[in-house]
């Protein structure tokens, strides 16, 4: 197989110069071989066969595939013969149990002979990341406001459309709403996604999480019997000052999180999927990159801690905790892949909490 591959590539090279009688179309025993099409330049076409990774059934046979065809193009060709499997749900790999090949991989640079065998796995119905994000973030925004305005059938009828008398409830509504509006705008204008799609069932999982928690938190914060933080919970300082400080911290973290998102976006030119090490920029909020790999998660944790202290509501604390656990898992994964990909990755950095985690 390797010899074939070598011959295939060297064949290509010589065709660039002159007509290539010296390196022939590999005249090999394999029965399936068709002679390459005669063109001005003797280009060695590939043949691609796609097998099902589980059953090994032959699903598709493509002949006369350009050597510089990408996996993405092959997926489109496969899609034509199997219209129910659009490219986003195809996983093409060299080995039935191996990793998926990337769309950008070029056929002739893969360790295959001129008859390439790929294995296909159906990833299931897919949905775009943007759609998922927009849906999962719009929910909390709307749901929280429904509780804030005390829409009927949530609380006792005498409270319908009343508003809370505690200023911290109004502040909490503004913070929560601002948070999700920020997320929606970032999804539309800031984030650059590596993958276009995710499995369809994720939207149900994610929306249940976000919408469920939003409803749970909003129910208590906007409840007529809500107990705002009082001077009994903070003995040393005038409660309003502490509350203001907490709000400032919360807001600070929101800005920090946004700054990190922008910094990460600027690492990646439009339309590309390159990965680079993020470094601190002129924006002071990004200086945390010196100590942390995923400061966006650090700031996010800070925001929600602030919100928890601001509202003194146990469900908010649960939400913060669950979010923190999930973000730590993601941060550790990201940190590990940074370390794997870049030899010169700054050693001082921790995944999410400076020096701790």
């Amino acid at each position: 197989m390797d010899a074939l591959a070598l011959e295939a590539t060297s064949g290509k090279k010589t065709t660039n110069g002159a007509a290539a009688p010296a390196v022939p179309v590999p005249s090999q025993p394999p029965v399936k071989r068709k002679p390459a099409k005669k063109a001005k330049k003797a280009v060695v076409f590939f043949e691609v066969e796609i097998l099902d990774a589980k059953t090994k059934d032959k699903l598709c046979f493509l002949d006369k595939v350009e050597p510089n065809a990408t996996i993405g193009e092959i997926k489109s060709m496969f899609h034509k013969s199997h219209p129910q499997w659009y490219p986003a749900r195809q996983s093409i790999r060299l080995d039935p149990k191996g990793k998926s090949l990337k769309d950008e991989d070029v056929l002739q640079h893969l360790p295959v002979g001129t008859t390439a065998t790929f294995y296909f796995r159906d990833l299931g119905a897919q949905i775009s990341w943007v759609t998922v994000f927009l849906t999962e973030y719009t929910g909390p925004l709307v749901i929280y406001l429904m509780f804030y305005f005390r829409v009927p059938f949530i609380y006792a009828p005498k409270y319908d459309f009343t508003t809370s008398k505690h200023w911290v409830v109004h502040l909490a509504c503004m913070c929560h709403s601002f948070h999700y509006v920020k997320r929606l705008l970032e999804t539309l204008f800031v984030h650059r996604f590596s993958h276009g799609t995710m499995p369809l069932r994720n939207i149900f999982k994610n929306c249940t999480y976000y919408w469920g928690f939003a409803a749970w938190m909003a129910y208590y914060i906007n409840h007529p019997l809500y107990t705002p933080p009082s001077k009994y919970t903070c003995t040393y300082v005038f409660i309003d000052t502490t509350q203001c400080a907490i709000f400032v911290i919360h807001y600070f973290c929101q800005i920090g999180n946004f700054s990190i998102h922008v910094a990460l976006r600027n690492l990646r030119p439009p339309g590309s999927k390159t990965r680079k090490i993020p470094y601190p920029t002129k924006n002071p909020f990004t200086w945390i990159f010196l100590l942390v790999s995923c400061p966006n998660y650090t700031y996010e944790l800070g925001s929600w801690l602030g919100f928890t202290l601001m509202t003194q509501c146990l469900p908010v604390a649960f939400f913060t905790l669950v979010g923190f656990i999930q973000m730590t898992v993601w941060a550790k994964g990201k940190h590990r892949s940074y370390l794997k990909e870049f030899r010169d990755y700054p050693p001082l950095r921790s995944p999410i909490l400076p020096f701790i985690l």
Partner: protein
Amino acid sequence: MSAAAPGTSKAAHSEVGPKKKKGPGALATAYLVIYNVVMTAGWLVIAVGLVRAYLARGSYHGLYYSIEKPLKFFQTGAILEILHCAVGIVPSSVVLTGFQVMSRVFLTWAVTHSVREVQSEDSVLLFVTAWTITEIIRYSFYTFSLLNHLPYLIKWARYTFFIVLYPMGVTGELLTIYAALPYVQKTGLYSVTLPNKYNFSFDYYTFLILVMISYIPLFPQLYFHMIRQRKKVLGHIEDYSKVE
């Protein structure tokens, strides 16, 4: 739930077969054998206790009190099985095992122990009996599997008795929770109301109702999973291959 299912995967992986991955080491195996033997013995004690109490009293009522302590001890001890999965000496899913053990522990402590009035209900005897028979068979199954001398009878029993025991146990559990409802509502057991400084509330009564409802999707899944396992395991008598 009275799941014979908890250790299905555990049993499969405990069997030494050609397709098994790295299994527990010698020390871990010895520990697991001791654990399973102790559990078998414990549930036998409960079984004997039930029979003796029945013979002494001459009726089915109120037998719970005669085995209350060993039941609590050995059922709670099953929490160790979650640890076994977490540490890796038993290649089962931590989440699945955790869920099944905790549901048993929940019924033992948060329902039967906590609501004194249901302890004399016959439904308690129903699920305790189901659990006892199931666990005796299950733990002996593991013991013999670990020692590589699994009598076919035990394997057959493990994959057949559940057909009756599982629904029996589920019925007992549901009836017990249902019987506990009025008392929970009256006393506000384990419930927190507003207003309070944590801005949190929890209604145990509603929670119990939701638990009962959750049996509807969960029980059939677990039951039919066991039926499928039965076909696989008992279908190939000579084949010791992986069950899952």
